């Protein structure tokens, strides 16, 4: 399959551990790919390379098979972008800004931009300089999506949006995905990525420490977590004594959480059959759980050196 976005061995060393180091990623057609990491982990640097603003020290970035540095301008015909740091050109209102962008892009039909403005409930006649953070972000989102580009690069797309608008944004992303667009989005908000992404890469100190397939999270993990609470202390102890992989247990609540692959599920029920269970529930694994675990794992390996 031809990758839409391909990052191969990308390295940009800003010194003192800042930058990105040997990043390898591919994004497939129609995929929503998330990039998560704490501030300064290299998300924006990665996106700046894809936008052709930065030249890689080592490695390459390509979009639709074309080098992001060499073909930056042509590639922009197919890329919509919401930048992480928004500074609008020197025009008066939001609408003036959209008109300016439309001239750059050669867009005459205002239907799409107007529908996006309605959707985000944006007052496009407001002066840009007086806009709040949230309004600026909405303006940037409209500008990023107005070109109807098949590829979207979103750097912290929802910063400054209220929860209602975050939801509108998530819906928009899902709709765009349904139309076959490919999206590459960075965020530090796990729920936003959970709601939209097919795969998510974790970036830490400029390196990718994990790439997760979202279809294997949120309750579909191959190894699932089940939480069982018992009525009596005796049953609780009996269960603990068995050979399940216990993730944690709480004596005061008589609760046990076990990790179990699907083929061992019958063994769990067999062992519970003689015991008085108050309830049993599956605890879906969240992106945040996954991230924290991988993060700590990588901390561990770092300390080992």
């Amino acid at each position, binding site marked *: 399959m031809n990758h839409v976005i391909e990052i191969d061995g990308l390295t940009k060393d800003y010194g003192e551990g800042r930058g990105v180091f040997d990043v390898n990623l591919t994004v497939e057609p129609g995929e929503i790919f998330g990039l998560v990491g704490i501030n300064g982990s290299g998300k924006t640097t990665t996106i700046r390379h894809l936008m*052709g*603003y930065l030249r890689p020290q080592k490695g390459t970035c390509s979009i639709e098979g074309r080098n992001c540095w060499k073909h*930056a*301008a042509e590639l922009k015909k197919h*890329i919509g972008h919401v*930048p992480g740091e928004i*500074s609008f050109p*020197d025009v008066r209102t939001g609408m003036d800004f959209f008109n300016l962008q439309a001239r*750059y892009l050669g867009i005459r039909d205002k239907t799409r931009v107007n529908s996006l403005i309605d959707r985000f409930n944006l007052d496009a006649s407001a002066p840009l300089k007086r806009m709040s953070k949230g309004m600026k972000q909405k303006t940037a989102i409209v*500008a990023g999506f107005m070109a109807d580009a098949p590829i979207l690069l979103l750097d912290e797309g929802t910063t400054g949006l209220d929860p209602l608008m975050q939801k509108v944004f998530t819906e928009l992303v899902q709709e765009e995905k349904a139309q076959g667009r490919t999206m590459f989005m960075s965020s530090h908000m796990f729920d936003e990525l959970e709601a939209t992404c097919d795969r998510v890469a974790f970036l830490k100190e400029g390196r990718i420490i994990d790439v997760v397939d979202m279809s294997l999270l949120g309750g579909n993990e191959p190894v699932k977590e089940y939480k069982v609470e018992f009525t009596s202390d005796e049953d609780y102890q009996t269960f603990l004594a068995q050979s399940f992989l216990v993730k944690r247990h709480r004596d005061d609540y008589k609760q046990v959480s076990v990790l179990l692959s699907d083929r061992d599920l019958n063994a769990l029920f067999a062992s519970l059959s003689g015991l008085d269970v108050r309830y049993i529930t599956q605890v879906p694994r969240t992106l945040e759980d996954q991230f924290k675990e991988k993060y700590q794992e990588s901390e561990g390996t770092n300390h080992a050196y």
Partner: protein
Amino acid sequence: MPINSALLRQTTRENVTLWGVLTAVQCLLVGVIGMTAPIAAAGIAYYNMLPGIFMGVYAITVGNKLISSQVDRGTLAYVLSNPVKRSTVIVTQVVFFAGSLLAMCTLSAVAHSLGAYFSTFGANSAEIQTIFKLNLGLFTLALSFAGIVFAASCLFNLSKYTIAVGGGIVCAFLLFPIMAMFGSKFAFLSNLTVVSLYKVGSIMASGTGWAWDLVILAAIGLVAFAAGGVAFVRRDLPL
């Protein structure tokens, strides 16, 4: 020529006010001078002093705004996120820069000519020609200033460095001839400035030696524009 019309329009909008004010003041001054002083006297008294400073102010302010300040503030991201090549950005901005200076000098020549024509002294065609030559010289001087500031603008991510380096060089060039007048000890300074290539006296005298000086001035400007452009196309932009 790769020029982006949307960018040219936006650049014009952003800089037209300063251009208008400086052009109006310049035209008013040369117009009044044209009406009150003979061309030979006006040449020496006026063209040696003030217009260079006007051009310097315009070159520093606009040169910074064309690239550096847009990188500094991040607004260039909204140019380059469109299918616009960096080289197109450079050519468009240079076309505006040089074009606006040419328009300023042309209008200044027209205003001076009109002033002289309607003055009590009148003006013959040779004198009108001199006025246009003086303003052509002014244009090439302005072009060298503009080139220097533009090159700095292309190199620096921060406006303050562009103003310090590009603006500093232009200011020094403007100050050296004045300092050189403070005695023979400082006379060497007049050899260290491009302003010395704009020889008002030699333009007004017969002969064509001045033309080569103007070619050199224009060449300085063009080389600086080109060097800045090449650097800008190749470098990382923190957008």
